[in-house]
């Protein structure tokens, strides 16, 4: 069982060490993801693993053997890459690109044997690229290009696959497809996959291990459960404005400034689109009455000026209604997002009556503010 490890690895450009003392271990069948800010050094680490950059200290070992000792050809049969640069080609078909992956296996003139052709076809099938094979690479879409490049990397039949931001330029559907293929490669072929990703929500879902790269050091390494906890992501990315929701893996913009100008009567997910719309318009708001296990509560916590809430799984009581009434009076407007009233939030209907009795405008859309 192969095992890739980096020990006391120092990486950087032009003899200047950017990140030193990197210890890393990737077992067969594992997906390891590097996350971190732009320019944090993710690519530099990956390039040092793929020998595009000379390590400035320490070494990368494959099965305990220093990878620098491998010949060009042997190295290529162990490692394959998908680079982050956009590839521009001149009259090359997609099949030719994939075939190039057989380079370390073919003879001096690069003649493909039947076996090679079978592997090319199989690799194309694996990424769903059979239909693209005879098309010019320059004429297919970004998503298709990335799949072909992945097929090329598969075709090289490596033990370790290294991908530098393989999902940039891809729409969400291709992102999910591509990462799904990587997971399959890891579990079916026992390949070790190391990649860098900007989509931390996806990283949390596909990785066995996450490495947080932070400029001059490895900030933290661990399972997604260990990394996506508490304030780590906020610190790693230096988030000052806006916030990152760990549970949803979603990003919320900065909370609108100022005093609440509207009270949003929400619950059960009806509030989230309204909150985001208000945020876009820069209107501060208060909201309620939310149970703390309501989905709306998650986003409200990031965006609302004030939240009137009740503990998880509890019914709304009279004193909660009073608190909400105070907020409605202060905001001067009531926006009704929720119109489902069940056992737990029955009393919230009273708020509608309260607004009517006190001639507080009752609206149903953000545009009415």
């Amino acid at each position: 069982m192969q095992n890739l490890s980096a020990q006391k690895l120092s990486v950087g450009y032009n003899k200047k060490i950017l990140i030193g003392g990197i210890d890393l271990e990737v077992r067969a069948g594992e997906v390891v993801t590097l996350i971190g800010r732009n320019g944090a050094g993710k690519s530099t680490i990956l390039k040092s693993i793929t020998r595009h950059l000379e390590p400035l200290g320490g070494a990368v070992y494959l099965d305990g053997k220093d990878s620098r000792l491998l010949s060009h050809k042997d190295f290529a049969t162990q490692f394959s890459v998908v680079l982050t640069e956009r590839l521009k080609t001149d009259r090359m078909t997609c099949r030719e690109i994939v075939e190039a992956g057989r380079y370390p296996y073919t003879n001096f003139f690069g003649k493909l044997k039947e076996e090679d052709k079978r592997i090319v076809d199989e690799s194309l099938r694996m990424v769903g690229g059979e239909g693209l094979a005879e098309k010019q690479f320059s004429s297919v879409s970004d998503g298709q290009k990335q799949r072909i490049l992945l097929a090329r990397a598969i075709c090289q039949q490596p033990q370790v696959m290294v991908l530098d931001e393989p999902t940039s330029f891809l729409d969400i559907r291709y992102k999910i497809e591509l990462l799904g293929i990587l997971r399959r490669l890891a579990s079916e072929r026992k390949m070790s996959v190391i990649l860098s990703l900007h989509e931390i929500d996806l990283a949390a879902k596909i990785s066995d291990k996450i490495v947080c790269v932070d400029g001059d050091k490895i900030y933290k390494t661990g399972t997604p459960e260990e990394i996506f906890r508490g304030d780590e992501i906020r610190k790693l990315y230096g988030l000052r404005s806006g916030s990152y929701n760990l549970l949803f893996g979603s990003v919320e913009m900065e909370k609108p400034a100022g005093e609440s100008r509207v009270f949003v009567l929400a619950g059960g997910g009806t509030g989230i689109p309204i909150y985001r719309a208000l945020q876009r318009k820069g209107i501060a708001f208060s909201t309620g009455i939310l149970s703390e296990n309501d989905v709306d509560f998650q986003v409200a916590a990031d965006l609302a000026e004030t939240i009137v809430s009740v503990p998880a799984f509890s019914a709304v009581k009279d004193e909660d209604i009073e608190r909400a009434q105070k907020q409605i009076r202060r905001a001067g407007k009531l926006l009704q997002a929720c119109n489902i009233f069940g056992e737990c939030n029955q009393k919230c209907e009273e708020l509608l009556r309260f607004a009517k009795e006190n001639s507080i405008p009752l609206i149903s859309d953000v545009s009415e503010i």
Partner: protein
Amino acid sequence: MEKRDSGILRWEICYAVLVLLLFAAVVANIWIGSANISVGDVFKILFTDVFRGQAQYTIVWSIRMPRMAAAALLGGALGVSGYLIQTYFRNPIASPFVLGISSGAKMVLAFCVVIATNLLGGLSGVSMVVASFIGSLLAMGFVLLCAGKTKNMAILLIIGIMIGYICSAITDLIITFAKDEEIVNLTYWSMGSFSGKDWDDVAVIAGFVLVSFAGTMLLVKPIAAFRMGEGYAQSMGMNVKLFRVLIILLSSVMSACVVAYAGPVSFVGIAVPHLTKMMFSTSRPAVILPGTFLMGAVFCMICDLIARTAFAPTELAIGTVTAIFGAPVVIAMLLSRRRREL
């Protein structure tokens, strides 16, 4: 599967067309000229001894044939070295001339001509060839030296262009202080021409060009991989450093040979590889390299024919003709490329 077969069929047809064109160009080059020789006589001269000893025989065998052979070989070499440089720099308009190879040749030549005229009373044809050969290799050597220092292809290309400028500046300096009669040969050289080649020249040209071409054909596998760029090429197990040196070396020997024997011949190196790729609809080196050689040969033979017959008895500079046919190809190529990208 069907599509791949039709691709191979297309390549076969293209080769057949090129060979036919080559044959037509050979016949035309031997047949057409200021001395009127009928086609029938041409074949008699070539394949029988009927005309041996007569003027026509000498014209065909000692003037037209070697000139044609030189044009074909040098044209092929230009095409191939253009393809190599373009693949190497991953830039469609790179060519050995853009990298200052002819400027380097001209500089050394200018220097030698001025010195020789004053000290030896003139420079022989052979020494001119040697001087410009050294000059081209000097310029390319410098580019090669820089290639070891930077990995950025765009920067290397600009360095090449700058070296060209420096060489031109030094040449101008020499010319400024030279007497007219000293540089008459230089002026003649910089017009570029395939004229006055004899069989000895052709033998030397053939030696350099064919050996370099054979060397290039041995590199089809790495060249094919290098089309995806250096990063991928290296990851597939290629020794990129060695490859870079070999490619620059091969293409500069070929283009130095052209510069030495025919002077600067513009646009062939840019236009011919592109025309070939368009015709064959691929950039696969195993297919394109022989194709480019044939296409370059045909292109230069036809251009030379035009150069010597269009305004006979006045002969045009070969660069004049190649530019007229080559430059539009480059313009069309750049425009269509832009369209494809949008």
